[in-house]
C-alpha cells in the first residue's frame, strides 16, 4: 500500500484538480464573450453529458453490462418521471424496484 504521505498528496491533488475544473468552467463563462448560438449550445452540452451519465450508470457496470435489476429499477423510475410523478416517488420507486428484484434473486 502507498505511504501515508503519498495518499495525502494524491487526495489533495485530486481535490484541487477537481476544484479547478469546477471553477474554471464558471470563470471561462464569465471571461469569454460567447455568441448567442454558443450560449444556446452550452445547456444542450450539459444535458447531453447528464443524459450520458444517466445512460452509462444505468446500463454499464465497469466495462460490462449492469445486469437486469438496475436497468429495470431505473426504467420504473423513468416511467414514473415521464408520467410526472413527484421526484421523491421516482427516486424511491427506482430503488425499491431494483432492491426487490435482487431480493427475488434476479440481479
Amino acid at each position, binding site marked *: 500500500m502507498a505511504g501515508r504521505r503519498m495518499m495525502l498528496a494524491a487526495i489533495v491533488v485530486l481535490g484541487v484538480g*477537481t476544484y479547478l475544473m469546477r471553477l474554471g468552467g464558471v470563470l471561462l463563462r464569465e471571461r469569454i464573450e460567447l455568441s448567442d448560438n454558443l450560449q444556446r449550445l452550452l445547456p444542450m452540452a450539459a444535458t447531453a453529458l447528464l443524459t450520458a451519465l444517466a445512460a452509462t450508470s444505468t446500463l454499464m457496470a465497469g466495462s460490462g453490462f449492469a445486469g437486469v435489476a438496475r436497468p429495470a429499477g431505473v426504467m420504473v423510475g423513468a416511467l414514473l418521471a415521464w408520467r410526472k410523478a413527484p421526484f421523491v416517488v421516482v427516486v424511491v420507486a427506482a430503488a425499491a424496484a431494483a432492491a426487490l428484484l435482487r431480493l427475488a434473486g434476479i440481479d
Partner: protein
Amino acid sequence: MRTIQRTLLRDAAAIAAAMVAVGASFGAIAIAYGLPVWVPFLMSTVVFAGGAQFLAVGLLAAGPVAAVLAGLLLNARHLPFGMAIGSSMGTSWRDRLIGSHLMTDEVVAFTLAEQDPVQRRRTYWLIGVTLFTSWNLGTALGVLLGTAVGDYETLGLDAAFPAALIALILPSLRDRTTRLAALTGAAVAVAVTPWLPAGLPVLCALLGLFTLLRPDSPDSPDRSYYVESPDYVESPDRADHPDRPDHPDRPDHPDRPDRPIHPFRTRKAAG
C-alpha cells in the same frame, strides 16, 4: 411561489436521504479496503465527487498516480458543466469560489431545470449545501458503522441516482434538438464504455452535438433562435434586433445573408 419552494425542499430531502446512504457505503468500503480512517473524510470534504471517490478508493491502494489521473478524468465533465451554468451561484467572488466546490451532477441537473435566475441561485445553494452535508454525514456513518452498513446495491440505490438524473433532465429533453443531441451522445457514451477508461465515455457524449449540423433540421439553432427565442423578439434595444437600421437581416440591407450566423457554418450571402 410557496409551493415551488416546498417542492424543492422535498426534492432536496429525497436526494439527501439517498446521498446519506451512498456516502455511508463509501465510508464503509474505504475502511474495508484497509485505508486509514482520515482518507474517506478527507476525500468527502476535499474532492466531494461521488464517482471519483469510489474510483480513487479502488485505485489508491494500488497506485496513487493512477487514482489521481482516473479521478481527474472522471471529473473533467465539470468544466463544461461550469460553462453551462456560469454564475448561477452568484457573481461575487465569495459565491463563485465557495459555490464552485459544491458543483455536482445533481446540482447542475437541479439548477438547469430552473428558468428564473433568482430561483436558479436559490436552488444551486440549497441543493449544493444539502448534498455536501448529507454526503459527509453519510461518510461518517459508514466509517463508524463499518461493514454493518449494507451494500448499497442491496438497497437499490444504484438505480436511484440514474432515475433521479432522468427525472431532472426530462423537461430539457422536451426540446427536439436537445433530445436528439442528448440521446445520440448517450448512445455514443454507452457504446464506447467497454473500451475507454472511466470518465472518457461521458465526455464523448459531446459528439452528440454534431446532430445540430443536420442541414435541414427544422430545429437547428440557426433558425429556431430567431423563431422561438422570446428575448430576441422582446428586446428591441439589442444590438442584433432586426428593427435596427444597420441590422443585416433587414430586407433592404445590402449584405443580407439568407441564414443567421451559426457557430459551425459560414454565412451565405443571398445574392
